[in-house]
């Protein structure tokens, strides 16, 4: 298991990482025509190219037909490296038989590089789109070198706050349902989601890094058994869905349908996530999830969720509550680095609270009243 993402000090500069790249599209050239890998950097192996061709999106593979339609896929290759498809419509296909030419920019990176992006394909997508020349869409080259992407070493506070508004309650419920399926490792096709990229971002933001590291996802691409990822956002009607996944190997979740009331070993974590979302604290969840690289079980995540909640309760706890909180966490063995760090944080908070309670005993004017009110809550 990769080590957890360490939160760098605020002054750390953004770094860069090299990733391999390729272009899969349909152009006419002296060596061939039709959809194929037209250019690739030298670091992509033959087996990896074969795997890419097996599932790369070809004609008509984007859910939307508009010229600005886009899609993304992220999955692990058999080599163990991470592969991403950044797919766009790029004008008319050269045989002019209707429909747009589908242009896919393929990125391949090792797990350590992916970890630098917090195992978040949307972060990779943003970094890549900032670097990829738009001219490549109009005129794909025949040769490519490795691409250098900028990577942030710290989650910028302002970016997440500006990126997504607070989730409406009904949407939060649906996103939590999708998150439950991800944590339960059930393959899920979400049909008809509005703004699937945003829904995916919310889902990924609350998915612990231990799950994200191996998670395969896509949005904006038509569903195909060749791209049967763990979490797929696609527009598909019921008859088409039944035709393609009629054997029930993938759970089809229609966005407008009622959320199934299933139980899961991750319910405690999901409740914690919902509470944070409802309080507008999605930054906190994103940051915490990015650090959970070793905590994978429902029990471990429940402990994390309880610990985070209790750390905040310590600050206002009266002696009785403080004792109960200490007892709850005193004999717990940490499940991973983040758990250990949070336990240390809890202990520090307890020490600080004890000091403040002792001072309050000596100066009973205000502290005891506040502690009693906190206990009543």
């Amino acid at each position, binding site marked *: 298991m990769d080590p957890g993402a360490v939160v760098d000090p605020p002054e750390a500069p953004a770094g860069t990482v090299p990733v391999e790249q390729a272009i899969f599209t*349909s152009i006419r050239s002296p060596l*061939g*025509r*039709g*959809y*194929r890998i037209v250019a690739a950097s030298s670091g992509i192996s*033959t087996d990896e*190219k*074969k795997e890419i*061709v*097996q599932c*790369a999106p*070809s*004609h*008509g*593979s984007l859910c939307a037909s508009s010229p600005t339609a886009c899609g993304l896929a992220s999955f692990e290759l058999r080599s163990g490296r991470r592969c991403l498809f950044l797919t766009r419509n790029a*004008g*008319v*296909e*050269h*045989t*002019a*038989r*209707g*429909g747009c030419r589908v242009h896919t920019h393929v990125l391949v990176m090792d797990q350590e590089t992916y970890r630098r992006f917090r195992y978040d394909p949307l972060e990779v997508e943003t970094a890549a789109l900032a670097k990829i020349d738009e001219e490549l869409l109009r005129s794909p080259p025949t040769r490519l070198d490795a691409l250098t992407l900028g990577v942030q070493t710290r989650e910028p506070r302002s970016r997440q706050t500006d990126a997504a508004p607070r989730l409406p309650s009904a949407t939060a419920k649906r996103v939590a349902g999708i998150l439950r399926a991800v944590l339960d490792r*059930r393959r899920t096709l979400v049909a008809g989601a509005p703004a699937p990229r945003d829904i995916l971002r919310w889902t990924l933001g609350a998915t612990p890094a231990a799950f994200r590291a191996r998670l395969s996802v896509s949005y904006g691409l*038509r569903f*195909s*058994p*060749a791209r049967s990822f763990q979490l797929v956002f696609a527009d598909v009607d019921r008859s088409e869905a*039944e*035709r*393609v996944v*009629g*054997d*029930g*190997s993938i*759970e*089809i*979740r*229609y966005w407008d*349908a*009622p959320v*199934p009331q299933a139980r899961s070993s991750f319910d405690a974590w999901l409740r914690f996530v919902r509470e944070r979302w409802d309080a507008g604290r999605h930054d906190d969840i994103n940051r915490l999830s990015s650090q959970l690289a070793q905590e994978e079980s429902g029990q471990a995540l429940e402990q994390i969720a309880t610990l985070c909640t209790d750390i905040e309760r310590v600050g206002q706890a009266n002696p009785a509550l403080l004792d109960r909180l200490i007892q709850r966490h005193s004999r717990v063995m940490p499940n991973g680095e983040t758990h250990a760090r949070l336990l240390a944080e809890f202990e520090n908070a307890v020490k600080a609270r004890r000091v403040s309670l002792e001072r309050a005993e000596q100066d009973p004017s205000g502290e005891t009243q506040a502690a009693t009110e906190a206990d009543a809550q």
Partner: protein
Amino acid sequence: MSTAATSSASTPCLICAAKNSSRAVLCRECSAPMALVHEAAAQRRAPQIVSVIGDSNVGKTVYLGFLLDMLSQRAENYEAVPRGAYSVDLPQIVISHMAYRTFPPKTPMESNEWNWAYYQVRRRVRNPKRVDLVMPDMAGEALAAEVAAPSTFRVIQNLLGKSSGLLLLVDGALAAHGTAQPDFFALKMLSYIDAMFARNRRKQIGMPIAVVLTKADYFPQSFDDPRRFAEANLNRLWNMCESRFANVAFFACSVVGSLAYAIAENEDFVTPVPLHTSLRGILEPFEWILEQL
């Protein structure tokens, strides 16, 4: 509402033999329609697979669509009955598009998007020979990818391995204009088949292969002697056929009667417009294959 139930019963796919649940519409491995299995079981005989293969944009979809439509309309006294409504999708797509003076859309590489046809074919004569045929419309790019790196698309490997006959379509128009690409693709395709079927390097492969020169309206002289045209303009293909294949015939075909080219304002691409269809040489290759089966 979400659907997550699985069925415990298993049905092997006709193409790849993978086990599928009885509820599956498409094979979970190769995306071939499971209806093929059910239809074959109803007929109590295994169908024969005739594969139409060729490079991208050579005209496989148009050829196969018109062929099936002609058979359904009892051309040359043939009777072809579709087994399953899905078998009619391809001719419907092709005929409908051509009626509106457009070519049908490009066939995607994803095998779940391919059109499959399962037809029971016989000649309306005394003591007719009935043949059940499965003819998938494959994407040319998928064929090219499989030929370049075998096992990229196992469904193609399985299909070709189980084929009783092949219709190898070659872009005769490009060849007539001096382009070597059709010749190289055909050579690669035949090399792939040779590697797949050859048990003995000294013995030629006996599977019937009809080499069909498409878009022959560009070079109508090929109708007189397609074999000679291939020898002159597709020499690599010709040599490979002579060396390694015992049962090859050459044909020329054409679908388009006249073709126009349209360009819209503010656009930099040209759209070919089939003004009307004039079918020629569509049935003969199929007829020959049927006689060889």
